[in-house]
Structure formats: structure tokens, C-alpha cells
């Protein structure tokens, strides 16, 4: 609750293992049993015991005479510490040690290697043991690898190294990848007599880069890349040597070999207790704040009534600013004790987000028109790209796709809408769906599109839906232009030729509408006919307007007359409508197409169009004579076209 979560508790014989989720910020001091014991002791106000590391050194041999250590790059290796143990006898570890390793997920190997691993678990400091006799010239050199150098690791894998990889080398060649894995050459075996126990500190970023590059992750690299206190090496080396002596016998050579050119001391941070109160929203008395920090190993000193000088232990690499100390105080004090208080703040009204406003409006309209909203993934694959005619250079490709199905960012909403249809068409007679989401185009375009689809619907119906939508968005000047694709235009492939249109507002094209090509439906194994629209939503929301003007309703009666006209089949309704409006002028309130007929009784290549014409004036009642005259004008005007014939 105040530190880390126990994810799992497992019974192991008479003991238990706790599986805990330690956050990366606490890796430096808590990726170890000792660290957790320290934390629990602070939380429960208990004492914790540090494991025994009291060595009996063999005064006759000096470590420095048995091995020489040279660190070429001090920044990459801030500290290199080693202990040397002679006359050892390598065997299997005792049962308790093997069991502990196994319960922590490690495989027992031999006593020396097991001890190195065990001390890492205890202290958080990774250790490595070399067979000193296998080191060329009894030398240890910490340096970057030379290009084309190679290493075979303990598990028999071969790696090619380069100058970005830090290695431990002997007089001749790399014997370990620093902080990551040991090499096969100086491996500990049953004949090993003299060991060098490495307890070093490596620069986190260097270990991380190499570990990524070589794709090796180990318990050691995990700890190093999070950063470890350089002051920990000494204790870990002593503790390991202590255990080796106890378990594998041997004599610990005198002295610690230690290359530590720049000692890291504790950091001092000034903590303003008023600031702590302001940030947490609760006053924590000085006494309690200091108690909490001290229980966690911090040293505190009051500079005055409000300011503390706090010295953080070097193992707490995560603590460097006052906020870090406030977190410590807050969590131990208990976040549950902080009250809920509404902020006292100036009353600044929330701004209206127009983008969201139009999104909501459009979604509501389509919902009322019977469409179901879908969310799809923002990706599609090579198959969709090809099928929908998207050229590779237009697409943004994912460097590390989850699968080939999601190789590109989607350049259009249509492929995924159709995939949804494919999933559903067996269960529903009619499908009406839409999506509002981002589409992406190379090199870095990201914009919102709105697309919708009716499976088993008519062009005219979908067009009516778009009309309704645009009308509700306050858009006039909406018209539909026949779509004439240029030969290289890829879009032509997805639409049924001559059954698609550009949606235009004034002179601006905002999208497309039409029937999808049967070729595409076949390819996706969709049965039926699908009409779709695809609108550039950025353009749409820019043009939309909330302004709406009331148009006075005429108080005078309207009158309706019908006209039926026989025209050649390729004549467009818009042509006829334009002619009617031309001659009707202001007296026509509305013209309503109520029937289109092409049938056997009609002359070939002709169709019959029937309209209601609604007449109304704003300032008077129209007499039937006046209406007859206008209607006559319209008929005359229509019949000026050679093959048009008004039916009387």
C-alpha cells in the first residue's frame, strides 16, 4: 500500500515466496531482498539485519599481486571492485542455497556461480566470477570492444562486438560483456582453484544500449540499466567472498581491489515544509516528516522552522529534488489521510471545442438516420492497400507492425468499414454503419474523415442522408458532380463506374459518394450491393455553421400542379429541374420529383419524369389564371428541347 504491490504469494515448503511489482524508480535500492527488508522495516518500525560479510583475510597473499585491474574508460565504469579467493574447491551448492535460487527462478550451477547469483539477489549488486588462471596475464581490463572482436558467452552463443560494447578483457581478448553476461573462456569449473569475484558498477545507458544491440537480457543487465549505487560494490564483494569461503573453502586474499576514481557521496536537498504542505494539501508536522525520512535512511537537519536539509542515501538514485522527498513523506504518512478538497481557483469558463462539437453533431445526425457507429483499428495491411489502390509511397508504414494485417496506418476508413460488413452481413439483412476517425498519408498527414456505408441500400437514399446531414450542418450550395477520374487516379478502382459522385460545397470537393465496385465486394466475399460515402471531416467542420436563419412562412395558400415529361434516358433530372426553375422564377416554392419510369409502354430510350410543382407567393394569393400562365411558360420552355415531350 505504501511501497509496492505483492502480486502473488506462493507457498514453498515451509516458506513463502512473494512476487512483488517494484517500480523502475526503486530499482536502484529495491531490486533486492535487502532493499525490501529495509523498506518493510521502515514501514513497520522494525529493525532489519544485514547479512554477515565479516571476512578472515589471508595476510600471506595480496589480491593486487594475484590480479591487475585497469579501467580504460572511467565514465563507462565508475567503479570496479574485486575480491580474490584462492585454494577453493568448486562443488555443488548446499541444498538451502539451491532451493532459494530455484524459488527465485534461477538455475543452480556450481557453488561459486550460485553464490555470485545469490548475493546479487540479496544486495542488488550483480557479481561475476572468473577463473583467475584462465585470464591471460592475470589481467582484467575494462574497455570498449574493438571492431570485429568476438565473444562466446557462457551459454555457448557467439556474438560479434563493436566499439559501442563495453567488455571485460584479459591481456588479449574479451572475457565478458560488461554488466550483461560472462564469456565461456574464464568459466568456473570443478578444477578452478583461484577466483576473481567482480563487483563493478557500469554506466546504465551503455549497458542498456549493448543489451538491446546484442539482444541479451539478463538479471545483471536489468539491474545495471536501471542504475545502481556505486557504493554497493564493496559490501557485495565481501559478502560473496564470505560465502565462498564458507561454502567452497579457500582463502580470501588480503585487500579489496578497487578502482573508484570519483567517489559518489550523498546528495543534500533542501526541503521547504510549506511547499510540502502546498503540494500534498495536508500539513505534516516537522517531527513526523523527519521521522519518516530518517526511518528510510535519510539524514535530516532543520535549517530553520520551515526548511530541512535532507541527505539522501546514495542507494536512492531516484531522489534528487524536493518533490521526491515529499513523495516519501506522503506515501509513508498515507495518501488515504489526505483530505478531498476542491481547488479554490478563478472561475474561468471552459472553452468550447468546436472540433468536438461538430463531431458530436454529426454522430447524432447519423445515429438518428439509423446508422450504427463503429470504431476500427487505425491500421491496414498490404492486401487492403493493393485492393483499394493505395500506392506504397502514399502510405505511412509501421517500423514494427504487430502483424502484416496492420503494416500501414490506414489511408482511408473504407477498407475497415467493409471488413466490418464482412463480419456482419450473414447476421443482418441491412447494414448501416459509419466511422469518424483519423486517416494518415505519407509523409506526415493526419486528418479526420467521416465514412459511412449501407449494405443493401440505394444510391438515392444515401444521397438523401448526406443532404440531410449537410443541411443540418447549415451548409447550402451542396451539389453532386459526376466523378470523372483521371487515368492515374487510384480512386477509380473502388467505385462502380458512373455510379459515383463528388460531394461539393460551392466549388470545394469535400468527399465522395457512390456504389462500391463489385470487384472489391467479391474480393472481400461480401454478398449484396454496398453504397458508401467518404467525407473529409476537417473540411466539413470548417465549412459548417451553427447560424440558421428563419425563413418566414407565407400566409398565402399554395397550389400544386403536376408535370410529367418524357425525355431521353441520358437526360439528367438536374437539367429538367433547372429548366422548371428558370421559367417558374419566384412563384415556385418547391419542385418535387415523385416518379421516374422507364418501361415497356414507353418509346425506347425514353424515360418519364413526374414532378409536383408547388406554387406560392409571399405577398398574395395566386389566382388560377396566374398559375396556369406560369405552368404554360414552363411547358413551353421544356418543349424547346427537341426530344423532350410534356405529357398532357
Amino acid at each position, binding site marked *: *500500500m505504501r*511501497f*509496492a504491490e505483492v502480486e502473488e504469494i506462493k507457498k514453498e515448503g515451509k516458506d513463502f515466496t512473494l512476487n512483488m511489482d517494484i517500480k*523502475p524508480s526503486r530499482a536502484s535500492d529495491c531490486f533486492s531482498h535487502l532493499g525490501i527488508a529495509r523498506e518493510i522495516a521502515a514501514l513497520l518500525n522494525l529493525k532489519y539485519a544485514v547479512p554477515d560479510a565479516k571476512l578472515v583475510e589471508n595476510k600471506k597473499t595480496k589480491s593486487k599481486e594475484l590480479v591487475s585491474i585497469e579501467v580504460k574508460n572511467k565514465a563507462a565504469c565508475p567503479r570496479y571492485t574485486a575480491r580474490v579467493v584462492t585454494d577453493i574447491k568448486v562443488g555443488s551448492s548446499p541444498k538451502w542455497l539451491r532451493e532459494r535460487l530455484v524459488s527465485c527462478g534461477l538455475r543452480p550451477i556450481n557453488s561459486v556461480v550460485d553464490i555470485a547469483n545469490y548475493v546479487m539477489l540479496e544486495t542488488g549488486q550483480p557479481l561475476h566470477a572468473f577463473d583467475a588462471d584462465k585470464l591471460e596475464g592475470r589481467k582484467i581490463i575494462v574497455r570498449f570492444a574493438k571492431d570485429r572482436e568476438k565473444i562466446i558467452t557462457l551459454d555457448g552463443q557467439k556474438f560479434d562486438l563493436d566499439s559501442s560494447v563495453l567488455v571485460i578483457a584479459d591481456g588479449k581478448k574479451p572475457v565478458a560483456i560488461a554488466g550483461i553476461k560472462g564469456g565461456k573462456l574464464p568459466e568456473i569449473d570443478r578444477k578452478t582453484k583461484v577466483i576473481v569475484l567482480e563487483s563493478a558498477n557500469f554506466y*546504465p545507458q551503455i549497458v*542498456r*544500449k549493448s543489451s538491446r544491440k546484442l539482444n541479451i537480457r539478463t538479471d545483471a543487465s536489468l539491474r545495471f540499466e536501471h542504475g545502481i549505487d556505486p557504493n554497493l560494490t564493496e559490501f557485495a564483494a565481501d559478502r560473496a567472498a564470505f560465502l565462498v569461503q564458507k561454502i567452497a573453502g579457500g582463502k580470501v586474499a588480503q585487500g579489496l581491489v578497487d578502482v573508484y576514481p570519483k567517489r559518489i557521496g550523498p546528495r543534500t536537498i533542501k526541503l521547504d515544509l510549506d511547499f510540502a504542505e502546498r*503540494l500534498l*494539501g*495536508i500539513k505534516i508536522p516537522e517531527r513526523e516528516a523527519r521521522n519518516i525520512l530518517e526511518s528510510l535512511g535519510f539524514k535530516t537537519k532543520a535549517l530553520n522552522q520551515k526548511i530541512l536539509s535532507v541527505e539522501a542515501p546514495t542507494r536512492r538514485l531516484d531522489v534528487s529534488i524536493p*518533490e*521526491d522527498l*515529499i*513523495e516519501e513523506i*506522503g*506515501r509513508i504518512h498515507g*495518501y488515504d489521510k*489526505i*483530505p478531498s*478538497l*476542491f*481547488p479554490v*481557483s478563478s*472561475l*474561468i469558463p*471552459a*472553452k468550447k*471545442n468546436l*472540433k468536438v462539437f461538430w463531431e*458530436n453533431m454529426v454522430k447524432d445526425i*447519423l*445515429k*438518428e438516420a*439509423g*446508422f*450504427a*457507429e*463503429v*470504431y*476500427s483499428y*487505425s491500421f491496414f495491411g498490404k492486401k487492403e492497400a493493393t485492393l483499394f489502390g493505395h500506392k506504397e509511397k502514399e502510405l*505511412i*508504414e*509501421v*517500423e*514494427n507492425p*504487430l502483424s502484416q494485417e496492420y503494416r500501414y*496506418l490506414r489511408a482511408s476508413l473504407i477498407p*475497415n468499414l467493409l471488413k*466490418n460488413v464482412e*463480419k*456482419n452481413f450473414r*447476421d*443482418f439483412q441491412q*447494414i448501416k*454503419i459509419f466511422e469518424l476517425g*483519423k486517416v494518415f498519408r*505519407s509523409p*506526415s498527414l*493526419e486528418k479526420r474523415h467521416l465514412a459511412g456505408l449501407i449494405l443493401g441500400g440505394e444510391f438515392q437514399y444515401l444521397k438523401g442522408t448526406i443532404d440531410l446531414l449537410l443541411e443540418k450542418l447549415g451548409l447550402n450550395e451542396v451539389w453532386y458532380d459526376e466523378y470523372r477520374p483521371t487515368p492515374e487516379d487510384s480512386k477509380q478502382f473502388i467505385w462502380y463506374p458512373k455510379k459515383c459522385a463528388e460531394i461539393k460545397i460551392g466549388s470545394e470537393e469535400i468527399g465522395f459518394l457512390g456504389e462500391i465496385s463489385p470487384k472489391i465486394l467479391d474480393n472481400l466475399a461480401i454478398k449484396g450491393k454496398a453504397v458508401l460515402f467518404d467525407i473529409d471531416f476537417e473540411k466539413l467542420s470548417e465549412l459548417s455553421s451553427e447560424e440558421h436563419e428563419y425563413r418566414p412562412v407565407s400566409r398565402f395558400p399554395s397550389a400544386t400542379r403536376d408535370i410529367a415529361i418524357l425525355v431521353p434516358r441520358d437526360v439528367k433530372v438536374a437539367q429538367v429541374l433547372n429548366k422548371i426553375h428558370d421559367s417558374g422564377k419566384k412563384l415556385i416554392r418547391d419542385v418535387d420529383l415523385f416518379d421516374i419510369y422507364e418501361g415497356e409502354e414507353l418509346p425506347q430510350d425514353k424515360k418519364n419524369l413526374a414532378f409536383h410543382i408547388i406554387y406560392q407567393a409571399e405577398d398574395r394569393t395566386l389566382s388560377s389564371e396566374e398559375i396556369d400562365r406560369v405552368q404554360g411558360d414552363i411547358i413551353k420552355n421544356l418543349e424547346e428541347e427537341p426530344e423532350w415531350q410534356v405529357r398532357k
Partner: protein
Amino acid sequence: MASKISLNLIKKQAQKDIEKGRDLKELNDVFKRYLGKQGQLTLLLHSLEKLPKEKKAKVGKTVNELKGLLKIAFDKKSLEIKQKIQKEAEEKEWIDVTIPGKKPVFGHLHPLTLARRKVEEIFQAMGFTVAEGPEMETAWYNFDALNIPKDHPARDMWDTFWLKNGSLLRTHTSPVQARYMEKNNPPLRIIVPGSVFRHEATDSSHEFQLFQVEGLMVDKTISVANLKAVIGEFFRRFFEKDVKFRLKPDYFPFTEPSFDIGISCLVCGGKGCPACKRTGWMEVAGAGMVHPNVFKNSGLIPRDWQGWAFGFGLERLTMLKYKIDDIRLFRSGDLKFLKQF
């Protein structure tokens, strides 16, 4: 006077005819015969034109009285017939009220849209502005500006989709914190809803594309106590019940202190059940006090401002609210799922 006698005859005959009328059509014929344009009484009135003025007035009055009398009789009879027809109809006609109704066809908004609107409504009521940002993001905004340096293990907390154009898909909505603070000076209160992407395998509780909502409040003295008040109010309004919540220590590079926010399990009410892994709590959000480096990277002076930020997955809250058991349903496009909302 003959006219008087004939008027009496007309009256008697008319009353008889009205009484005999069996339906509305017959009655209408009778009406026409006496009171229509060519009806007897109408013609009689016309014939009075030739009489001297005094006589005309006298006879005219009598005829008009008779007309009035007959109209009343007609109306009465007409009502009688209508009532009779209605009564017969009521005996014959009926509706089987157990026949299923015909529903008007309505569409459906996606559950995430519904939840998003609810979230926006709650925060807007508390003065938060809705802000947005790009889904294709730079490493600077997604990581560096948020105090997550390159080659730092903290980056492993977010498995990232990298793009060949050099950008990445944002792994959280937090980049908008920096983007917004660069352009807007505090005090500020925003929420940021939007899609985020995580490079990870999917199962019933993991998705690689998610909808997240970020919150950010910055002013002179914004505290953890304020975070608790606002987030508590949000949970109560969103779930429409008195949801308990708690803060636990957590780690995010862009906040200090950082919290994990858990709510009391909505399934068992906090007693412990399989849904909450028997803990009684469910983790739903991350939060914390904005790290000074984030202020610095956004062009603000850290000591001048303080504030908090939070982020939660909208799918998770929606799943809890509607008891949805598989996160993959949201982007499945399955209409059997979507039509329930």
C-alpha cells in the same frame, strides 16, 4: 293563406323525412331537398322577391324560423346516426394489443462515444476544456518532454509503435500536456480524450489501440487533496453511485509524487472477488503531481506553478460500467455488440 298551409305541410313532411333517414347519405339527400341550393325552402325564399315589402318580411321570417327548426332536427338526427355507427364499429373492431410493436429504426452510438461524452460532460461542468493532439507524435513530446530520456529503462513502460517516417504512434495522451502548456499559460484545466497505441499482444483485457482520457490542472497551489476531490467527484458521477477510491504510490517519470488510482470493486463492492483478484480494488487510472521538468520542457517556470495530471483508459471504465468482459469487442465492429448501446 295558402303559403301558410303549405309551410305547415312542408314542415310536417320534412320532419317525417328526417326521422326516416337511415344513414348519413339518406339524411344528406333529405337536407338537400329542403335546405340545399335547389331545396324547397331556398326556392320559396327566392320566390318572395316579388311580394310587397311588408309581406315579404313577414313570410320571410316564418320561412327562416322553419329553416332553423329543421337544421336543429338534422343535426340531432345526424348525431344519432353517427353514434349508432360508432357503437356498431366498437362492437366489431378490435386491436390485438399483444401483437409486437413496430419500432422506428434508430442508429447506435459506439459505447466509447457514449462514455466519452459522459466524461466530457462531467469535467466540463467542473470547468475543464476539452483539448486534443495528434496521434502521430514525435519522440520529443511522447517521451523527452515528459522527462523520459532516451536510453532510459522507463521507456520500456510503453511498448511503442515506431513509424518509418521517423515519428511514432503516441503511447499515451500525456504529450498533449506539453503541447497545451506551450501554447496556453496557466491557470489551466483540460481533459484530453484520444486514441493511444501500445505494441503488445491482445487478449480479453489487453488491446494495442486504446482510448485514453488525460486530465491536467495547473495553478498556483493545486494539491493532491484537490486531485482527490476532482477525481472522486468524477467517479461518483460516472458510475452514478458512491464509488470509493484510493491512491497508492506508483511511478511515472512525468509526475512526482505519482499515484495509482484504484476504485472499490464494482462487482463485489470491495469484499473481494475474482474480478478484483480478491483485493476488493480495481486499478483504473494513473496520476500524480506534474514533474518540474515537464513544466520546464513546456516553457514554464517550475517554481511558479504546480498541478496534477491523470490518465485513464476509457475502455476499462466503460467495461466496468456496462459489465463488458472482453476489451476486443470495442473494435470488433460486431453489430450484435454495438446494437446494444
